[in-house]
Each structure stands twice: as C-alpha cells, then as structure tokens.
C-alpha cells in the first residue's frame, strides 16, 4: 500500500451511470488484479473504495457507478484535478494456479476488476472467457474492451434487451471452464454458488472504515476464522467462504 496524490487524466461517462476514470500516480504497490484503491473526496469523512480495473507503470484505471453523494462528486472531476489516494489495497485475485480455462463472471460494477484479471491471465498463457451481466442493454459497458483483449465474451441482460436473457448463470450453458473468478452483487453470488462446479474465487464488498486492516470494520467469518475484507480480501477462495 502507498498513499499519494494522483492526477485525473480522464474521466468519462460510459453507459448507464457508469464512469471510467484514469489517474496518474504511483502504482508500484499494486501486486494483483482485484486489489482496490481508496479515494479521499473533499467534503466526505471516509474514503471511497474502488477496484483497480487496469494499471501500468504510472497510471491506473477505475470504473465506477454513481450511486450516492461520493460517486456523484467523482463524476464531476475534471482532468488535472488531484485526489488523495491509498493505492494497492487488499489481496487481489490469486492467478498462479494450474487451471487452463478460467471463467470470469462479472455483474455491474463488479466487471471492473475482471478486466485487469483477464489481462493477467492472458499474460500467463491461460485461456480465460468472460460473462458480463447487466440489467439492460443501455447499461452495457466495457464488453468491447474485454473483446479487444482477445477472449470470448458473453453478455447477459436481466431484461433480455441484449445478449442472453437472464443472469450471469443463465449464460453458463456450453461454456467450458475449469475455474472461476467472480465479482458482482450478492444475489449473483448465490446463483453462482448453486450453478458452478469448479473451484473459484469471489470478491466481496463491505462498508469500510480504513481499508487497510486497522479498524475491524469489515470483518467476515470464514472457515479459516475471522478475516478482514479489506486486508485479507476482498477476494476469497470458494472453499473458505461461509455463506
């Protein structure tokens, strides 16, 4: 983890109420996709945790949905403005395993960290596939960016207005996979837990005090005892999760 002042390079509306922001600054503390950053915004006491979508040596990308006062302020930020950011938080996805065909299951804002994950898996010579789930066609974002990485992408919409009608799990049919990674809302996780048969990893969200393991604000109980979503997670192995 490091703390720094990051400069907004771009900040653009995607579909729905999703935005993409690129920040310039120190990324040396980033070790894995699925990690997150924690953003201080003027006028708010707590920071806002947002997953790393992508990063290189001196910049990073986040995708965020406007859901409240803080993300509203983020959507107004202009290139050149600066932000106090804690970077490289949490343990991200573990990608060193022997699986060959990992499946990425993303829902809504949960799609963000899967993009960096897909890149990492491709770099390791694996053959990931992605299923991206949205509420409706007008919300679809980043499916093109995933495709551009050169992996098979299926889109599902809850209302059937684009891609496969239904949830992420309704798009599983005929997909070959030997492992899964997922990030998205709780109802999606429950559906996945009922449908998938392989091992895998889930990324969790929790209201956070600090984001770096100091306050015990984000604890969850696992089969290996109490864990902090921010520091020991946000990604947990399917095997250790207590539902």
């Amino acid at each position, binding site marked *: 983890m490091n703390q720094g002042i990051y400069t907004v390079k771009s900040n653009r509306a995607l579909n729905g109420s999703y935005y993409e922001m690129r920040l310039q600054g120190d990324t040396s503390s980033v070790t894995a996709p699925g990690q997150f950053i924690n953003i201080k915004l003027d006028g708010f006491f707590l920071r806002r945790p947002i997953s790393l979508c992508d990063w290189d040596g001196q910049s990073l990308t986040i995708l965020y949905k406007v859901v409240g006062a803080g993300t509203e302020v983020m959507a107004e930020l202009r290139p050149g403005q600066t932000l106090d950011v804690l970077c490289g938080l949490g343990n991200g996805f573990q990608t060193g395993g022997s699986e060959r065909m990992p499946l990425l299951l993303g829902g809504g804002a949960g799609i963000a960290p899967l993009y960096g994950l897909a890149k990492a898996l491709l770099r390791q010579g694996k053959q990931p596939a992605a299923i991206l789930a949205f509420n409706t066609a007008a919300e679809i974002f980043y499916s093109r960016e995933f495709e551009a990485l050169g992996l098979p992408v299926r889109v599902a919409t809850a209302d059937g207005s684009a891609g496969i009608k239904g949830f992420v799990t309704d798009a599983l049919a005929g997909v070959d996979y030997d492992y899964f990674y997922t990030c998205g809302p709780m109802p999606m996780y429950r559906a996945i837990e009922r449908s998938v048969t392989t091992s895998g990893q889930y990324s969790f969200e929790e209201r956070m005090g600090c984001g770096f393991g*100091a*306050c015990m604000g984000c604890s969850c109980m696992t089969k290996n005892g109490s864990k902090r979503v921010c520091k020991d997670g946000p990604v947990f192995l399917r095997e250790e999760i207590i539902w």
Partner: protein
Amino acid sequence: MVDTRVVLNGVTLDNPVIPASGTFGYGHEFAELYDINCLGTFSFKGTTLSPRFGNPTPRIAECTGGMINAVGLQNPGVAKVISEELPRLRTYFHKPVVANVSGFSVGEYAETCRLLDACPEVGWLEVNVSCPNVHGGGMGFGTSPEMAAAVTRAVKAVTTKPVWLKLTPNVTDIVSIAKACEDAGADGISLINTLLGMRIDLKTRKPVIANKMGGLSGSAVKPIALRMVYQVYEAVKVPVIGMGGVSSAEDVLEMMLAGATAVQVGAANLVNPFACRDIIKKLPCVMEKYGVEKLTDIIGGAHNG
C-alpha cells in the same frame, strides 16, 4: 528547540500523541507504513478475556465530519494477545504500550488486567467502561459512578501498573463519574469514547449499521470532547488523556489547553494512516507559531484567569 515531551504517571513520552484504541490494531498495519516508534505510545485494540468476533456487518457508517462504528470489540482474546500480539509488537515497537481492556463483568475486567499486568510491554492499563457497541456490556459500567468505581477498584487490586479509566460521553454528568474513578484509585482518566449515534439508509429505509446504532467519532465530536476534558480537568488531580476528533497538531494544542496531559487520535488514523506521524512532525512548528516552548506549560492553560 521546542520541548514536546509530556509525563504520564512518571513515564516521559517523547510527545503526547497516542493512537486511540480500536483505530491502530496492535500496531502491525502501521508499522508496515512508518516507524511507529515516533509515537508517544499507542493504545492497542480493546481486549477482552475471551476472543470476540464482534457485531454483524455493516459496522461502519459515514457522517458529516465523522463516522459511526459498531465493531463490537472484535479481538483475539487476552491469551492470544499475550502469546502472539505482544511478542510480535516487541519486534517493531520499543516503548511501553497502553493496554486497552474491556469486559462484561467486574471479574472479567480484573482477570484480563491481571494477565496483562505480567507483560513487560504494557506501560498502562486503559480500562474501557464505555463501549457503546456491546449489549449489557461496557457502557453500563461507565454510566454510573458506582459501577465505574467498582471496576476501578477491582482492577487496581490486581495490578501495579498505572490504570486509566476510559469514560463514555453518553452521560448527564461526566464529572461525577470521573471523580468516582479517581477516588477509587484511577491513575488517569481517558475521554471521550464514542457518542451513540445512528444513520438510516434512504434506499433500504433501514439503519445503515446492522446493529442499528454505533459510536460516533471524528472531528464532529471534538467540541464535546473538549468540553468534557475541560470539566474533568477541573475536578480531578490525575492526568486526563484527551481524545475525540483530534486530527491535527492544532487540535493537540487545543486539547491540552483544555486540560489533557496526552492526546489520543482515533478515527483520523483510518482516513489518513499517516495521521499520527504527520501530527508529530508538525507539532514543533505549530508550537512555535503559538509561542509554546514546553508543551507541558500549556496543559490546562485555558483555565487560567
């Protein structure tokens, strides 16, 4: 050169800045970020006789100028603190630490303190009779002078280390409780713990915190903390350890002028992990700005004249 040292129960601290219990764990996460030996000392996470997972989540809610927490005293229990946390602490922190203790009965407080009394790493015992986040728990002891005194006496009987009583601000008369603790043998009074508060989510129409209510802290509570430190300073002779909303070197001076001998920093550590280091760095410069040569000179300074 200004002098930032203060003395707490005969022990000289390099400076009065002490991370507050529950916002600094057992120091480990911060020791990874900076050399925490720059601190006056720190108060470790509220420790109980048995391990506790704490409350269900969400445990955190944001507020204007502050936050609510309902962690509920999650901790590994005193045995593990002694067998694992303190030995690890020794590797990165070389000053006496403040052991923050909670309990659910007078006997439990005493037993936990007795076990910690044997630890050379522990310089002070800070007995939390004020946690708002546990049912039938700590806060009950802190809302009556009699119960607070009973806890004080029981703890004093089992330890030779200095004992601070940490009080809740959720009371009508903080002074009578502080005095009862002093009369029962307390060597210091820590205040304030958090103020009981709540937030409601407009989308779900439910309390944000799973436990419904939790403890408010952060800048928002500073005026209340200053007032209580000021009142208690006038009523007791033992040192007052002031906290509540401190996040800058200026706040440290304000708290000391109100009567604090040392100052704890809580929620600010969560938002800025370097908060205490930054405050300590800026302290000499801010002291010079306000003409303070020796920090001990201004303790209770706002009471003069």
